[in-house]
């Protein structure tokens, strides 16, 4: 069984920062970068700085010192999860670095929540970040290179989000979680991440419902990570054909970050897209009580893709109860 129930783990607070494109888009957050460098020399340094400011802000808002945090779990898109590791050298906090691409944030919440549920730990933080240009450089072409992008491609969001998780009761309860399995449906197209991740998302949703004996309508909202417009259509049809599940209350974070005029094709991607939308849009409207959050990650490596391999994907889910 891949699912687990938590007794009392809560998300107490969060802190977000966004990049210039997101600031011009649908999000409205006080902390936003005016350019991709943010007064640093490289894009990599800018991403580390974003994460640092998120973590400092989260500690400051809650009157905490780094010594008060028992565990921090986090990851990002860079090779060797550089942004998170280099950020964590500034803080004396026990740290676990993880990678599951754009599902990293949900994975870090699952790990942190599990540790807190044992009650050995009191406070944990889950953190993630992504930067459009560090990932363009690593996964695609040089930053200034004018590669023509197809309509099915997605646009990596810039930003960082951290969440403080404790046993102290708050508005947002982490109720249960499902750990995903790696799924590969033979897609080789590196531009079509929505198609790569859809089967993984579907499988995790189906297993979550089966394990916890729930119906899809139990949830007021199913929020997927970064399937984009292509993946959203695919997921609905896939679930209907394959599992006879009618997905009605569904939103995809990737489709909600940017406005229609921005040249982002199928939507936003990156581990930060999901928590940005979850904390700054979905949880702010107070409309949804039971939310299934499905983080989707495409586990592709440029090396394996160049060697003509297919792209595997993973999806992790957490269920939130909002009071």
């Amino acid at each position: 069984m891949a699912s687990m129930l938590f007794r009392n783990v809560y998300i107490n607070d969060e802190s977000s920062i966004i990049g210039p494109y997101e600031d011009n888009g649908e999000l409205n957050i006080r902390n936003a970068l005016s350019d991709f460098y943010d007064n640093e020399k490289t894009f990599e340094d800018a991403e580390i700085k974003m994460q640092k400011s998120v973590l400092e802000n989260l500690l400051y808002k809650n009157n905490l010192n780094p010594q008060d945090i028992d565990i921090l779990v986090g990851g990002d898109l860079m090779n060797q999860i550089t942004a998170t590791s280099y950020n964590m050298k500034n803080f004396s906090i026990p740290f676990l670095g993880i990678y599951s691409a754009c599902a990293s944030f949900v994975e870090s919440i699952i790990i942190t929540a599990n540790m807190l549920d044992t009650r050995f730990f009191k406070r944990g933080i889950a953190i993630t970040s992504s930067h459009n240009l560090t990932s363009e450089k690593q996964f695609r072409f040089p930053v200034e290179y004018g590669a023509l992008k197809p309509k099915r491609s997605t646009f990596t969001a810039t930003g960082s989000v951290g969440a403080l998780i404790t046993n102290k009761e708050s508005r947002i309860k982490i109720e249960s979680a499902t750990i995903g399995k790696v799924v590969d449906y033979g897609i080789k197209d590196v531009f079509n991440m929505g198609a790569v991740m859809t089967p993984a998302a579907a499988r995790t949703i189906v297993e979550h419902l089966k394990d916890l004996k729930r119906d899809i309508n139990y949830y007021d909202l199913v929020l997927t990570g970064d399937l984009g417009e292509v993946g959203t259509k695919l997921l609905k049809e896939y679930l209907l054909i394959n599992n006879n599940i009618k997905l009605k209350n569904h939103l995809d974070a990737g489709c909600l970050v940017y406005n229609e005029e921005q040249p982002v094709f199928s939507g936003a991607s990156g581990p930060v897209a999901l928590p940005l939308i979850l904390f700054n849009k979905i949880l702010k409207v107070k409309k949804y009580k039971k939310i299934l959050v499905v983080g989707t990650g495409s586990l592709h490596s440029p090396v394996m893709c160049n060697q003509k391999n297919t792209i595997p994907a993973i999806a992790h889910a957490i269920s939130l109860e909002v009071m």
Partner: protein
Amino acid sequence: MNKEQYQKLVKKHTPKENRLINSITAFVFGGLFGVLAEALMQILRKVFDLTILDATTWMMIIFIFLACLLTALGVFDKLVTFFKSSIIIPITGFAHSVTSAALDYKQDGLIQGIGSNCFKMAGSVILYGVISAFILVIIGVLIYG
């Protein structure tokens, strides 16, 4: 659902690219840039009294310089979204690929960074350009002696 069925579903929901419009744009603007280059060459010949060979070289140098400058200013990639392949296929595209790769690695140092990475994308153009030129010359010699 097996892999084949899924791939059919993916095909159904993947938006189609406007290949025809893109090709026409590239064709028209590519042609216009050709006309522009020819005009520049004629001007160079008239004004500076150059031979055709010299005027061609100067015209290419000017186009390469412009492509590099626009890349460094961050404008070239935006132009590509409008002009499509018309500015990627000619020598401007080659200059652009070298400059953009060099810009990406300028912080990694002169040797490990710019030196080993600036031909990251242009490298294949050079390699296969040389190989195909070599093969064509051999064929030319065999046929025409």
